[in-house]
């Protein structure tokens, strides 16, 4: 009996994985942006974050309506922004609530504690002097959740859907950050570039890993390839997509789930694009078009998973 997972719960746990990953990544980006992305007069350039998430239009529109001009508020406290920290943690908890009986007690407890804390956040927490501490706290809460899940979540079908959600979101995040690389490719002042390439690496926790792989200098294409393809780097698109595939495989091989060709085709296609879509000479337009294709591929994988498993009957 325990092998039967309701379609609705599969959807809940998939989105739980996505939302927690989203919070983790958002906190990371905000933190890095605060430290490393400074404008000419020294204050953080928050609009870069809007670019990463493609939120520029949405933010500017809401600003006209609400008079709010604080990007940080938009991404941390704004409950009307479905992509904010508060909204995402809320959604994570709502999804978890429906599957309370499928996750471990410890996961639920930790998430509840996290949620309670987020409900208590105020403007003070996003003051320039506090934002870094807040981001660190948010990141650690997500990492704790992931750690608890890793240690206590039974490796049944629910675990696999949770993981799929997590890795799809993670691949998506790395892809988004790579869009920043397009801008860097178009500039040619190396001095500025190094600092900003490093910031790009740091925003996906890749700085030290990359230095380890390439200790003695690199060409700029190497960073892009590293973030896309390196199978040692935990947030590489290749590793994340590979992880999604492994979990789909496990569902079939270990959980008696019938194979769904549409899902497999979507993964094969994405892998193919990932492997062959970008040539040796990486130009900004080529990279941009390639990343667009990756995004489309990721959305397709996510949609096919939803169609195959979440809407049965």
């Amino acid at each position: 009996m325990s092998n039967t997972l309701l379609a609705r719960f599969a959807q809940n746990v998939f989105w739980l994985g996505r939302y927690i990953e989203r919070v983790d990544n958002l906190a990371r980006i905000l933190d890095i942006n605060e430290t490393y992305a400074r404008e000419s007069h020294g204050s953080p350039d928050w609009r870069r974050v809007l670019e990463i998430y493609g939120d520029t239009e949405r933010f500017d529109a809401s600003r006209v309506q609400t008079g709010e001009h604080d990007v940080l508020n938009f991404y941390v406290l704004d409950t009307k922004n479905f992509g904010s920290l508060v909204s995402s943690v809320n959604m994570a908890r709502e999804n978890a609530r429906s599957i309370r009986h499928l996750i471990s007690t410890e996961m639920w407890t930790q998430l509840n504690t996290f949620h309670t804390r987020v409900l208590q956040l105020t403007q003070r927490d996003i003051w320039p002097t506090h934002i870094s501490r807040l981001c660190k706290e948010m990141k650690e809460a997500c990492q704790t959740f992931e750690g608890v899940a890793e240690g206590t979540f039974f490796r049944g079908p629910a675990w696999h859907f949770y993981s799929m959600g997590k890795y799809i979101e993670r691949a998506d995040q790395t892809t988004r950050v790579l869009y920043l690389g397009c801008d860097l490719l178009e500039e040619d002042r190396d001095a500025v570039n190094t600092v900003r390439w490093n910031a790009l690496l740091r925003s996906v926790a890749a700085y030290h890993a990359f230095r380890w792989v390439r200790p003695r200098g690199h060409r700029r294409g190497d960073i892009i390839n590293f973030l896309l393809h390196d199978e040692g780097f935990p947030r590489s698109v290749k590793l994340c997509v590979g992880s999604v595939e492994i979990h789909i495989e496990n569902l079939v091989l270990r959980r008696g789930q019938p194979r769904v060709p549409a899902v497999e085709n979507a993964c094969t296609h994405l892998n193919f694009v990932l492997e062959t879509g970008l040539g040796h000479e990486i130009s900004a337009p080529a990279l941009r078009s390639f990343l667009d294709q990756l995004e489309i591929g990721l959305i397709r994988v996510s949609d096919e998973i939803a169609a195959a498993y979440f809407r049965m009957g």
Partner: protein
Amino acid sequence: MQRLTVEHKTIYRYRKPVRFGEHRLMLRPRESHDLRLLSSRLVIQPEATVRWMHDVFSNSVAVAEIRQPASELHIENIFVLDRYPNEDQTFCIDPYAKKLPFSYSAREIPDLGRNIERHHPDPDRKVIEWTRERLSLTGDMDTEDFLIGVTRDIRSSFRYEVREEPGVQTPVQTLELGSGSCRDYALFMMEAVRSVGLAARFVSGYLYDSALDGLKNGTVGAGATHAWVQVYLPGAGWVEFDPTNGSHGGSNLIPVAVARDPSQAMPVSGTYDGDPEDFLGMEVEVEVHSVIAPSPVALEPERRA
């Protein structure tokens, strides 16, 4: 149908008599609907006890315990076979697999999985880049065209070298050196096609080259064991590709062993008890002849060694 004889001699020479450890021989062709073994003889000197087994790929493996020490080890394998090649070069590939990329079917994936995985690191993505260029030259992403193109391109862009020493160059090495043996070519092709999601495996065996054959009773050139690639194409099955000769279909190929990685398909492997300096060298001779098959009235005796 072709009737062929194969004589394969391997000689190891040593400075002084040495004791031999177990030797593993993969010399017996894989019989199937397209190959029938008529006779086979394995001679080992000094004398050995031989037992036969099937390895993980169901290749026939002779395991020899050589009973006495000697300063020369002779292994001679002679066999006669009938080869029924598939003359039809048009593959019957399933429609969904005619274009790249495609997913293997649900039933086949668990068994093909390892053959799709790449086994050799490619940190600078050089092999992938080479493959990508070939792909971009393939009109319409046609699977067949791509594979034939790769086979021919390897032949034309690399320099063939005979390498007797054991071991295989990594694909990256082959690419950087621009040269390799048939084993190196085969491995390179395997990794290249695997990088676009195709299942490929390594084959070692013999090549019949009519140009080397001459007349029925004529002289033959020295040959060597040969290596090539099989790629799994839904509908057509395992299809042979020979990058050394730029050909496909395998009508002139005699498969002995198939494997996921070249290290698993060595024709002869074994150990001796002694110092490295004791080893003087190794010689390999392969002769493959065509034989007229006896008609209802037998006109020619079969060639024997």
